[in-house]
């Protein structure tokens, strides 16, 4: 991979606010005994409140592993991870479930909506696990669906919605517990270019209203709409602050 970029550029550093994600020398080793695979070889990364950030890199570069750790679905082998000021690196499974529930919103490539539930019920699901009272659950889920423009589809089941609409339901579900961080894993990977734009517009709008957004993508067109690109290669961050403009120049 050739690059015309200097490794660390700070073109568009957002106004310094609260730090949401702070990874310190994170290592992740898979396997045991003699056949060990180092998926992450000491990653340090900081994401401030209100950032809109893409994570890119070839497959096997460690970008998915780092997303799993940032999303508290996985624990690093060594290193510290401060999420919203709290070190969650070695928390128990039980504690991590709670963190995922209230601090993180997930959006997946395959939407992962429950087929037997209506859009409203799908969006209410995280609040069910958070123990939000029924009345408030309904109110907040409706607000979230209005926010993603699905006020007319509240009672529809996933199979009565288009792919773009399903992903918007998933986004509503991700934001309904008011997380500090919205994580998206290839959120447009299953969508055509038109609906991709619809979904990206929602992410952009959410970020504009203050939501911190991180997304893994391999689509340059998608990454270009974010404000900061982090580039992974072979389990390391090789560029942590690329701008969308840099992507034009780069020949990855």
């Amino acid at each position: 991979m050739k690059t015309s970029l200097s490794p660390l550029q700070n073109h568009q550093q957002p106004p310094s606010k609260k730090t949401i994600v702070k990874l310190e020398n994170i290592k992740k080793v898979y396997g045991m005994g003699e056949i060990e695979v180092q998926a992450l070889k000491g990653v340090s990364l900081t994401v401030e409140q209100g950032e809109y950030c893409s994570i890119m890199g070839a497959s096997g570069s460690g970008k998915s592993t780092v997303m799993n750790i940032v999303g508290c679905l996985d624990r690093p082998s060594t290193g510290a991870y401060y999420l919203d000021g709290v070190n969650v690196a070695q928390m128990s499974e039980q504690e991590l479930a709670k963190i995922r529930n209230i601090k993180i919103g997930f959006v997946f490539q395959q939407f992962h909506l429950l087929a037997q539930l209506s859009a409203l019920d799908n969006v209410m699901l995280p609040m069910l696990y958070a123990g939000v009272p029924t009345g408030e659950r309904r109110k907040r889920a409706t607000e979230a669906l209005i926010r993603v423009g699905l006020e007319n589809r509240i009672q529809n089941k996933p199979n009565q919605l288009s792919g773009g609409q399903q992903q918007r339901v998933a986004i509503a579900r991700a934001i309904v517990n008011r997380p500090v961080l919205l994580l998206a894993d290839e959120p447009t990977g299953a969508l055509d270019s038109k609906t991709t734009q619809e979904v990206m517009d929602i992410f952009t709008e959410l970020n504009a209203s203050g939501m911190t957004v991180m997304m893994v993508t391999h689509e340059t067109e998608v990454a270009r709409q974010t404000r900061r690109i982090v580039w992974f290669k072979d389990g390391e961050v090789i560029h942590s602050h690329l701008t969308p403009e840099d992507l034009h120049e780069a020949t990855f």
Partner: protein
Amino acid sequence: MNFLEHIKMASTTLLANKMRSSLTMLGIIIGNASVIGMIGIGEGAQSFVNAQVNSLGPNVLFIIPGSPEAQSRPVYPPQTLVLADAEAIAEQVPVVEEVAPSLNGSELMSYRGKNASASLIGATPEYLSVRSFDVARGRFMSDLDLKRNEQIVVLGSELAEQLFGNEDPLGKQVRLKDISLQVVGVMQPKGSTFGTNQDMNAFIPITTMANRIVGETSPYGTQVTFISVSIKNPDSMKAAQFQIENLLRLRHKITDEDDFTVRNQKDLMNTLGQITGALTLVLAATAAISLFVGGIGIMNIMLVSVTERTQEIGLRKAIGASQQDILAQFIIEAVILSAAGGLLGTAIGVGGVFLVAAVTPLSAGISPVTIAVTVSVSGGIGLFFGVIPAKRAAQLDPIVALRSA
């Protein structure tokens, strides 16, 4: 997440897969229906037998000819009991209330060209109270009738109807062999006891029966078929039995094997109860096996369901479900399936029991306790067999689960 929400969510999932849910329940439904059915029929048989024994009369001992060992032999034991034995018991055994000897036979009875096969019972006035019979119209026999060898008869309700139809039998003469008897009374319907229709009885003074109809006496006096004895106090049953046995041994000069047997109602009930109880147990055990197999069916489907719903489990975990939440979800699904199957099976089983009761003499005996126990057992089976699949679901790694497309 509270319990009610877990139940609501599990129900939503189960209702979304109606076909699969009902097929899964089928095993439990059949298992429970058969357990309930078998126990119900067993209980019905038990109460039927009890009712039969009770209809013999309360606190009654029966003395029959032949030793206890001889009772199981195919030959009919010789008639060793005589009227004088009955009189001796009445006089010499203090705990005895009344003694009712009877001499039984069977003859064709006729009235104006109509015939009926009557069960003749040569009896004494005590027979009425000892054996819990009641006279509907007219009167029963008196001591005077016995003394005078009166040619009178008291008819069972069905026998009276067969011979007389709508006609009033009181005062009429019926013919029996070559003698005629005057009808002095008609009995209340009694039903049948151990297959013997008690309403086809014809009660005749035992002396008349012995002298005019059977026409044979032994050197020791008038023979009787058996003697019913009522006891004043149920607690003195054993004492009465002991005293009667000693008295009869003395009278019959017995040194070796008894030539009579004293039976009490409780023995009879216990023996029959053991038989029906064992029968019920065998039936219920067989049915319980099918309930167990139903439980395995639930486990099987739940395991398939966990594999099929891997992505759902991963998603739930990603958005904040803890291992306990997932565990609870799958266990509750299994318990709902088996408890609902249990309820349905119970309903079918109870229906079956009532159907059997409607077409057989058995009564529909199914206790609420049995129902409560079987429904909770089937719920427990769901709990037991739901644990393994639920644990597997709870321990799924969310990353792997979400990837499994």
